[in-house]
């Protein structure tokens, strides 16, 4: 709530004065004054012609508001408004179209994204695997020899003496 600033009304048993009591007089005219305030103002009206004049002039000015023109709506106003309302918001709270709960459109979108990521991963992973195979090819070619020796020092020795290549020839099956 905001208050645009109001003056504190005088105590109800104080005599009515014009300058200070305009709010009290207006609330009396508006039918908002309590019984005590109303009786006080009515007594003041009888006693004081100025108070009576003030009340009368405030009421007469207010009554002139009945002369204000009150424009009426265009004939199509209601139908046009309804059309605009239903066009801009076709869904009514009770008549919302029923949609399948699963899979929803977001599920489909999430699935498509996951599929795309999986494809990208496969494309990236395949060359990486190929590169590793290529790097390890010399070892794979002599894997049988390495398994047969089971001694690293011995392998280093025969590698140094270039005996591994000769062993390859010996191990090659005769055609």
């Amino acid at each position, binding site marked *: *709530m*905001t*208050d*645009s*600033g*109001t*003056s504190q009304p005088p105590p109800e048993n104080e005599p009515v004065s014009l300058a200070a009591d*305009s*709010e009290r*007089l*207006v*609330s009396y*005219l*508006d*039918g*908002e004054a309590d019984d005590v305030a109303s009786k006080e103002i009515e007594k003041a009206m009888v006693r004081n012609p100025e108070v009576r004049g003030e009340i009368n*002039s*405030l009421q*007469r*000015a*207010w009554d*002139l*508001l009945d*002369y*204000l*023109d*009150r*424009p*009426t*709506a*265009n004939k199509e*106003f*209601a*139908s*046009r*408004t*309804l059309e*605009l*309302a*239903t066009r*801009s*918001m076709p869904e*009514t*709270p*009770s*008549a919302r179209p029923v949609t399948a709960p699963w899979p929803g459109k977001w599920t489909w979108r999430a699935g498509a994204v996951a599929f795309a990521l999986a494809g990208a991963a496969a494309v990236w992973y395949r060359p990486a695997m190929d590169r590793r195979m290529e790097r390890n090819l010399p070892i794979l070619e002599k894997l049988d020899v390495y398994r047969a020796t089971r001694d690293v020092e011995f392998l280093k020795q025969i590698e140094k003496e270039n005996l591994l290549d000769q062993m390859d020839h010996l191990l090659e099956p005769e055609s």
Partner: protein
Amino acid sequence: MLRVKQGDDEAFAELVEEFQDRVIGILYHMLGDADEAEDLAQEVFLRVYRSRANYEPTAKFSTWLFTIVNNLARNAIRDRKRRRDRHGAGKPASSSQEATIDRLAIAPSGAMPSRIFAKGEIAEIVREAVKQLSPDQRLAMMLHRFEHMNYKQIADVMDKTEAAVKSLLARARIVLRDILDPFINPASPSTPREEA
């Protein structure tokens, strides 16, 4: 409104028909332009429609409706003021309104104070007098006079205290009385004719 909440569009049309003139009437005197008032009234009802699902019948429907009217009218007045400030115009209406009131007081016969005003002339004088009120005073006046709302209901619509509403309405009555007194009480010492 409960039928509207349940999605009954026919009920919405009935609701618009019931309140359209009252909403347009208030907006017209808040904005001073019939076309703008009708456009804004339409926006008021569109907002009612859009928020129908959230409507709770804890307050009177009219209180809720006029709260929307108040918010939109205040926004429109603020936008208009901003546009006017941007274009460097000050307060163009005020002096011309005062001139209208003075012109109507004296013309055409110059026979004040015994001059009798035609109904149309009184309407014009009152309309110009109402324009002298602040937007808050104007709305409080309209809600009280034409919607027969009490201080509490007006306070709810305008988001103010009852004391603030009491003060607004007292000021509104005094401003109107001061402007209109020469027309309703020709012997008044502030008659424009006598000042001239």
